[in-house]
């Protein structure tokens, strides 16, 4: 009897301790490998627009991520990391449900994204409360990093940095004294144009706003002409930028036409036509991609760099979201898009803005000028 009891007790104790060990080891495979043994086989997530009208931008980012993962997995065949894609179609309404799906998926250890500022604002709290670190390659709204979400970072300079540099270029390098600023009313565009307006100070002669999808720019063209402006800055994307540039030139405008990274795309030249686009200046907070960089398009280099930071964290042995987040916070290095280090809000510390020129009917992506 007593033997049975003792036997039973020890079996119970053994079973109990085995189960505790089994439960305990769910959180990691006892990894003290310097080569990131813990998170192998896990996933990174991408949240952004993959379909719909803005889908091309999301595809660019995914191309950048895939490139980084391909290189990493080739170098670390026993420790592959994969990508799970979540298509928000760029809309902030769909994003929260996708965010919940992401945080409930235990195989996802980090997020490259969200792609747009609207989605970032709608999901930042969700990721923060769940402790999932994220690095956005493209969301530039200034207020995102003011929310106190310590898990949110971005590898792209926010609208403040680019706007100030653009204003500087216009007044100093281009020598303009009367600048007309136009934007398309969207969050990114208004943010960028707003910073430019503030930084221009007295050099700002007037401003106006169009809508995405507008094709009739005649009113703006006339307003520009009658204001006597010698430079026009457009905050927005390449379609409206191209149409504006074309109609300005057709209307006889001879000054400088400048726009931001949303227009820094070969499509700008196509839309504006060679004559309309010539001599346009397009700024972007990214250095030209290296010649053999396998992924093209706006934001591809940023997505590539963001992915590599996660991969470096994993390689360094980070075991969970908190450690990855700390790694990101203390990371310094040189990415394809420029030098990367984050400040305490998640913004990138140094953001070099480059001016790209349209010459001879083509966007010159190889020889930009850095705006100091």
């Amino acid at each position, binding site marked *: 009897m007593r033997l049975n009891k003792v036997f039973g007790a020890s079996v119970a104790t053994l079973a109990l301790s085995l189960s505790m060990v089994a439960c305990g080891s769910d959180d990691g495979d006892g990894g003290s490998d310097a080569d990131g043994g813990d998170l192998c086989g896990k996933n990174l997530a991408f949240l952004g627009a993959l379909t*719909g*009208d803005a*889908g*091309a931008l999301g*595809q660019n980012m995914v191309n950048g991520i895939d490139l980084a993962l391909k290189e990493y997995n080739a170098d670390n065949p026993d420790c592959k990391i994969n990508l799970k894609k979540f298509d928000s179609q760029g809309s902030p309404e769909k994003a929260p449900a996708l965010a919940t799906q992401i945080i409930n998926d235990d195989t996802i250890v980090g997020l490259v994204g969200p792609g747009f500022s609207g989605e970032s604002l709608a999901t930042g709290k969700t990721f923060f409360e769940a402790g999932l670190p994220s690095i956005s390659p493209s969301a530039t709204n200034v207020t995102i990093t003011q929310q106190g979400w310590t898990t949110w970072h971005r590898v792209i300079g926010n609208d403040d940095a680019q706007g100030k540099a653009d204003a500087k270029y216009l007044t100093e390098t281009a020598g303009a004294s009367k600048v007309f600023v136009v934007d398309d*009313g969207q969050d990114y565009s208004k943010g960028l144009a707003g910073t430019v307006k503030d930084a221009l100070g007295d050099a700002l002669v007037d401003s*106006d*706003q*169009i*809508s995405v*999808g*507008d*094709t*009739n720019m*005649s*009113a*703006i*063209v*006339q*307003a520009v*002409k*009658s204001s006597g402006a010698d430079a026009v800055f457009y905050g927005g994307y390449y*379609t409206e930028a*191209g*149409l504006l540039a*074309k109609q300005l030139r*057709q209307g006889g405008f001879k000054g400088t036409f400048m726009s931001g990274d949303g227009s820094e795309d070969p*499509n700008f*030249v*196509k*839309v504006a*036509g*060679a*004559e*309309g686009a010539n001599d346009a200046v397009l700024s972007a907070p990214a250095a030209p991609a290296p010649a053999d960089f396998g992924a093209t398009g706006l934001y591809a280099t940023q997505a590539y760099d963001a992915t590599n930071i996660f991969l470096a964290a994993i390689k360094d042995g980070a075991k969970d979201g908190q450690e990855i987040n700390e790694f990101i916070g203390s990371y310094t290095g040189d990415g394809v898009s420029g030098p990367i280090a984050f400040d305490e809000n998640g913004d990138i510390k140094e953001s070099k803005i480059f001016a790209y020129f349209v010459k001879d*009917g083509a966007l010159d992506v190889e020889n930009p000028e850095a705006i100091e």
Partner: protein
Amino acid sequence: MDFGNLFGSPENFLSYTMGGLVFGAIYALIALGYTMVYGVLQLINFAHSEVFMYGTFAVAWVFILLHGTGSATWDLGEAVPVLLVALLAACALSAGVALLIERVAYRPLLNKNAPKLIALISAIGASFALAEAMGLRDRFAEVFRLDDNLADYVAPGKARDVFTNPVTIREHDLFTIGGYSLSDIDLVIIVSALLMMVALDQFVRRTRFGRGIRAVAQDPESAALMGVNPTRVVQVTFVIGGLMAGVAATLYMMKVGVTRQNAGFILGVKAFTAAVMGGIGNLRGALLGGLILGVMENWGSAVFGQSWKDVVAFVLLVLILLVRPSGLLGEALGKARA
């Protein structure tokens, strides 16, 4: 609110007004399609915006076909031959799409005497489907393994992106009044719209088909009793709307040069607004409504800023409907004098 901007100098005033007339002419041509279908069927053809959009793609495709994809800038004179071919293609495609809409989305419902609301829903569905089909043309091409051959036309991977005409047509100033210079393209657009309206007016008044249209607009049953084939008349109405849209598409591409699969949408809503403003069912009303809308939009931009431009259009519509519910020129198609 800056009235000084608009009325300050003759140059400004003329520029805003003439610029408005140019786009207004394009609205008017599209509005003709809406007004004709409404006049005959008392139905809003929501899908007419896609009829226009397909026309714009036809123009771009013709230029790519005849010129290739290299960027170029031509003068209006050199572009005329290609433009004429593009015009034919646009009219053909637009008319074809219009007939398709009539056959699939409207005729079954008209035969059943279904409530107007259902016909409207059917048209909305057709509108979505057509616009999306254009946005998915690269996938469709893939299914038929044509995506490589037709890559320039279907833009694989970028079918929803903006689609440009590689040839930009340079505008030349013809003459100058008060500081404002009228360009050749602008003149062509305004004159074309006027000509088309006159032609259509004559067609409706003088030809047999025109009489048939007016008869069906007045009273379909009596018209049938008098030997008019209502189905045929409806088809002709849709085709005419398609032709007008094709002309509008060519002029639009001449001036703007870019299109995308949702390009028809906002233009369609504005054109319909113009048709209602002028008096729906009234051809001259469509022209008047279109021109007034174009000018008011530009004036509104000048005074309130371009971001309020669309609001101007709708507020104008509401005001006109409140004061004069049948529109500015009121008269319906069926009441036109013989």
